[in-house]
């Protein structure tokens, strides 16, 4: 068998390889999520906002748009009941989204939010959202699904239009799988 110094080199190299595998599998995804949360990378928004709400900035008006997309195999009717609102930062608003399951089977959907521009994502705070939970609808049923949000007054002054997008995915067949829904 190889001499001792060789064995040592091999062990260290192997260890480095295993560590990098662990890094890719267990460190990179959460690190990326953390980075996204801090920088708004990919337009990911924070989870449910629980802290105290900041004061309203009456001076400033920000336009907030709502758009929806159905993922390819998602047959529901899904649209915002309001296209856009103009809001003062700090002020809470409730917007409803309409969903209807046109199919003949009971289904479960998950809405994934995304905000653009990316540097606004961390300033759009939701105190209530249908995207926090999966949304079941029986065959032929319909529902109005609310989101309550406010814009953090710390929003960079260069931003004056924010788009909040929801993509609706069919997760009926993924029921058994534990999913950590991003909010």
């Amino acid at each position, binding site marked *: 068998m190889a001499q001792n110094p060789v064995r040592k080199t091999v062990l260290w190299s192997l260890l480095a390889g295993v560590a990098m595998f662990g*890094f890719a*599998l267990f460190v990179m995804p959460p690190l990326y999520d953390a980075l996204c949360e801090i920088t708004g990378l990919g337009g990911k928004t924070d989870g449910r906002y629980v802290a105290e709400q900041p004061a309203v900035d009456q001076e400033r008006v920000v336009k907030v748009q709502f758009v929806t997309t159905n993922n390819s195999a998602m047959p529901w009717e899904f649209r915002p009941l309001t296209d856009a609102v103009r809001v003062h930062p700090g002020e809470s608003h409730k917007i409803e989204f309409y969903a209807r399951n046109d199919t003949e089977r009971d289904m479960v959907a998950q809405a994934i939010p995304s905000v653009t521009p990316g540097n606004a994502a961390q300033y759009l705070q939701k105190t209530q959202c249908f995207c926090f939970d999966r949304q079941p609808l029986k065959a032929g049923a319909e529902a109005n699904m609310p989101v309550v949000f406010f814009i953090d007054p710390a929003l960079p002054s260069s931003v004056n239009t924010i788009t909040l997008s929801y993509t609706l995915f069919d997760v009926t067949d993924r029921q058994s799988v534990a999913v950590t829904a991003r909010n």
Partner: protein
Amino acid sequence: MAHGPAKGIGRWLRATNHKDIGTMYLWFSFAMFLLGGFFAMVVRAELFEPGMQIVKPEFFNQMTTMHGLIMVFGAIMPVFVGLANWMIPMMIGAPDMALPRMNNLSFWILPFGFALLASTLFMEGGAPNFGWTFYAPLSTTYAPPTVNFFIFGVHIIGASSIMGSINIIATILNLRAPGMTLMKMPLFVWTWLITAFLLIAVMPVLAGAVTMMLMDINFGTSFFNAAGGGDPVLFQHVFWFFGHPEVYIIIIPAFGVISAIIPTFSRKPLFGYSSMVYATAAIAFLSFIVWAHHMFTVGMPLAGELYFMYATMLIAVPTGVKVFNWITTMFRGAITYETPMLFAIAFVILFTIGGFTGLMLAIAPADIQYHDSYFVVAHFHYVMVAGALFSSTAAVYYWIPKWTGRMYNETMGKVHFWVSFVAFNVTFFPQHFLGLAGMPRRYADYSLQFADWNMVSSIGAFAYGASQLLFLYNVIATIVAGRKISDPKVWEGAEGLEWTVPTPAPYHTFSTPPAIK
């Protein structure tokens, strides 16, 4: 240790001799090169003129994907491992590689990995069709059923690479002849040491990426699936964290080969040995912090784009140092133009052009136009083909007299060079124009304004492909019937331990360590 090689097939199946294993790596990579080249010919034949004539778009995507995978993992990476096996022990005065049995294993799992990958072509659903970069969700939710074979194949190939690099590191760090200090090692050894560290750092990341894919596809996780809280862009970050060092893994040993050949045929020592070592290390380091320049259009924050742009531009500095060093080495030498030198000079010119286009691609706002266009295809073929392949071709011509004790046919070598050089440029230079004018890469068909340059490119590609058969013929002819030579120092200007052993190199070299001046 006086015994020679075993007889029959057993010599190869149970090979532990670094020269035998090196030979097998070289032949395997050449076979893969021909296979990947054949796929490229299918691609260029389909693109010869507008319209779908030969294959269906679905199959076209399989061809581009398999071409990329086979060339990167099957041809270019193994050819340098083969050269490393043959040359590193002889260059540092070691009797063999540090771990001969692992060496055998790391070679012999490769054919299985690629057989698995290639067999998907004949399965239902076809071969992988999502590009060699296999972006999710095209490679996960929307992948053909054969994707699991692809993942398993990548795991095998990755394991082989990691074992190979552990072996190389252990050899270089522990088996150097007394007096062979790190800063006396030939640059080829240095570049491979750095490459091996890169491989150990990033091949596991690739393994991690495909493992996450495997789990998303088969076990319902959502690393890359937005529906379950994942993110397809995460895949691109993980992939390019592997992918950018990977392209340097491919090119850095080429630097080592060129740094051996240019001084030999200039009859003058390499100009800045230590600055070459530092420049290589700098390039390797930078390769870890620039990955997202492959993703300028995914919608990163401004600060991210600026950072990745500046960091990427920095790579031009150490790369420039290398090119300047080669040219200064040639300056005031006594240059002769044997086939290896011709390929080496072509490498310097064409690799530099690839470097220039690389710098252009680093400029983020301009990259908006270049990204995913044929400009990128031209760029990386200037680096991969004229860089990695030309240098490994040069290496074969350079060392084959030492390996076989026979001289290759110089005229045929020169014909091979000139046809390759001209055909290469005819193939890939027009692709810059196509990309700038708006033709995206991985297109099975294109609109009429792109027709002329595509036809030129295809003609060049056929000529380039044909000239490699000449290379194959020349190599076989050398082995079988080349002019016998016995001078240990095959080339007048050659320096280094490998030129002190007899020609052809005996089965066992440096059983007792040489004295280093």
